[in-house]
């Protein structure tokens, strides 16, 4: 009986008291919400003209601010707010930021800078502010250079701002080597040229006496590999960008060498060699030495590209009867096919991030630039046109530059860039026709 009474009382207390406990516990827990559907839109930012700290600097203050804004806006990730909307004016680099004014025009990031010119020396300093948190985003930075390098300093400012906002590396202070093309389609004159990533400052590295193809930057950006037909057969050369001096790389009589590319450490070159009607992939030390054959197939193996760690090579081959992409160890060996879609895949390039391979795809009469995972999954075609070819990664692995040729007898070649999300497809300004781009690493 006593046991029964105990049980009843305990049960009563449990029924009465426990709900109170449960409700109390529920109150201690915060409201939880899962947000998995956002928006994709450019981040609005403001770049007032940089403050000119002396009269000589006034010329550069506005120009540098414009280049910074153009760099950021050109990514498609940022949207510049027009100066007409500004409420505050920045008259001093050290004046306090009126966050409310910038917040009122929905600026999420604010870049304030100042320029000082002394002789031919230029000093550029800037600060980046997170408007909605009301605090600087990182510390201020200062760059020094000459008046002729003001664009590079502007790119440096944009690089720093981009990295702080996105958390990733940038690519504005970089260059592109490409093949400049002039003349009609059946009589094209081709020569190597180099320019800033945004098309400014074009310089020519070779003349147009002989056909040149497929220039490729070294990992340090000071040398360029390319293929020249000046002997009548394709042959690989190494060109020093500073001195424009060059030398032949692999001189193997009776063979044709092409499609070269540096290893990540810059000491090795991997390329294609065609001999006796067969094309395979070889590697050679840049300083000389015997070439090492990496593939031995009766099919055509070409367009090799190292992985960022230098341990693997992705290349194209028609060993399956159709042109597809394969990955093999850097020293050769068994290759694994990674592309399985319809159409033909070629010109693979390993991403600097190491997680994607960019390629050219030909399918149903159209060309595409696309990316896929290393196992061939998540293939995404980013472009489509009459002829797209030759992808090249930006230093941060975020943007792909490629060549586009229009249809017709007078088809023009030009350079385009596209974000790896498939957005922000835009032409890259260059003088005349341009093809075969190769993006340099970030300049030092």
């Amino acid at each position, binding site marked *: 009986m*006593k046991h029964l009474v*105990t049980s009843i009382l305990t049960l009563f207390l*449990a029924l009465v008291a426990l709900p109170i406990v449960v409700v109390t*516990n529920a109150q201690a827990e915060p*409201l939880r919400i*899962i947000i*998995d559907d956002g*928006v994709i839109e450019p981040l609005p930012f403001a770049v007032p003209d940089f403050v000119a700290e002396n009269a000589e600097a006034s010329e550069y203050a506005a120009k540098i601010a414009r280049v910074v804004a153009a760099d950021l806006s050109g990514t498609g990730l940022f949207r510049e707010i027009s100066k007409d909307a500004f409420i505050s004016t920045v008259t001093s680099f050290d004046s306090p930021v009126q966050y409310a004014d910038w917040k009122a025009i929905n600026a999420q990031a604010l870049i304030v800078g100042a320029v000082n010119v002394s002789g031919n020396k230029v000093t550029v300093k800037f600060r980046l502010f997170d408007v909605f948190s009301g605090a600087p985003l990182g510390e201020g930075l200062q760059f020094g250079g000459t008046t002729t390098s003001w664009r590079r300093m502007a790119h440096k400012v944009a690089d720093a701002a981009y990295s702080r906002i996105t958390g990733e590396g940038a690519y504005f202070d970089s260059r592109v080597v490409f093949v400049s093309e002039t003349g009609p389609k059946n009589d094209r004159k081709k020569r190597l040229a180099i320019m800033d990533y945004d098309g400014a400052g074009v310089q020519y590295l070779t003349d147009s006496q002989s056909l040149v193809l497929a220039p490729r930057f070294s990992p340090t950006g000071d040398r360029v590999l390319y293929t020249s037909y000046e002997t009548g057969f394709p042959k690989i050369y190494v060109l020093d960008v500073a001195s424009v001096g060059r030398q032949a790389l692999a001189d193997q009589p009776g063979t044709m060498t092409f499609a070269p590319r540096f290893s990540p450490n810059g000491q090795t070159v991997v390329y294609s060699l065609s001999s006796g009607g067969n094309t395979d992939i070889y590697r050679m030390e840049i300083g000389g030495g015997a070439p090492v054959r990496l593939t031995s197939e009766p099919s055509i193996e070409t367009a090799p590209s190292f992985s960022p760690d230098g341990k693997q090579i992705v290349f194209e081959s028609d060993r399956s009867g159709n042109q597809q992409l394969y990955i093999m160890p850097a020293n050769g060996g068994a290759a694994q096919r990674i592309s399985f879609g319809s159409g033909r895949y070629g010109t693979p390039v390993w991403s600097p991030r190491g997680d994607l391979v960019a390629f050219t795809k030909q399918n149903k009469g159209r060309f595409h630039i696309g990316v896929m995972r290393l196992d061939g999954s998540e293939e995404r075609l980013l472009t489509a046109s009459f002829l797209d070819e030759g992808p090249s990664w930006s230093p941060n692995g975020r943007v792909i530059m490629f060549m586009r040729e229009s249809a017709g007898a007078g088809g023009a070649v030009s350079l385009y860039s596209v974000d790896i999300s498939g*957005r922000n497809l835009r032409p890259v300004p260059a003088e005349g026709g341009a093809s075969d781009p190769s993006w340099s690493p970030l300049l030092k």
Partner: protein
Amino acid sequence: MDSGPLISGIGHGALLAWALIGGLFSRAPEDTFEVSEVSIISAEEFAALSTPQPSPDVEVNIPTPPQPEIEDTPPETPVVETPPEVQQPPVEETPPPAEEAPEVVETPPPATEVEDTPPETPLPPAQDNPVVLAPPAEIATPRPAPRVAPTPVVAPPPDTEVAEDVVEEASPDADTQAQNEPDEATAPEEATDVIVTEADEPPSSAPTSSARPSARPKRPTPPVETADSSTSDAINAALADVQAEDNAAPATTAPTGPPLSFGEKDALRVAVSNCWAVDVGGTSSRVTVVVGVSLDREGKVIKGSLQLIGSEGGDDAAVAVAFRNARSAIIRCQKGGYKLPIEKYSHWREIEMTFNPEKMRIK
């Protein structure tokens, strides 16, 4: 002397005297009748009065009224020398009505229709003729837009202000003549719901996986009955447990109403989502962050309450960017305060928001 019969006799006598003298048996006055005079008529006069009256004549052929003459030319509109004030806003400044914008086409692009050039943008109506409507969009492909949002929004006419709070245009109406300044139409920012690449095989926007539902909260552990526990011990133990729980929870967190409904939670989720910008190609798009925030009774973020509670994926830099984007979304979209029921404040004072960009990456 026996006084009883005497008293009785006196009483009865008095009663009889009152009955006789007081008029108990007198007659009530008779009611008066109203009398009216009547006249006497003869039988002939009555017959003449009761004879039915003949019906009116029915005329069958009713003449058709003459039709008004129809003139070939419309009547002249009287010329108004001075237009009425505020009846008609200036034509040049009047944006076309928002409802006349081309319809949003959500159909995915056909696989073989990808062109080198982006799809044509529907032309806005001419500035000097607001009657001309924008041609309806006949393109089945989604329009490329700088903003990719869950809900597509067609591009507003060029003169229409883009605002966060959409305002319908005030139409000229005779009933609104007293209105001094007509509202100009505003529109939400243009958006599409997919990333339109140039390729003919755009990535599918369908999610490949869904967020795992949160785990069910643990059930309260029932009190363990021990065979040898006494009645008083068990009661004391149960009371002690309840007391301990009460002490642990502050009195201010006591519930003041039912929890938020699904709709109320979803409204909050949508409000924050509209400001959560995801860089789908960036490393931060691979980071899930949990952000804690405290709101005041007006639904505004309490300063300094935003904090990163946890993260999954990515390196420190990516986590920092993901947290900053989440924080920015919460702050920007609060505007005047999140619209939450004040009577349930205790339920939404503390919020943990999980920002998971997994679905966004494959859009």
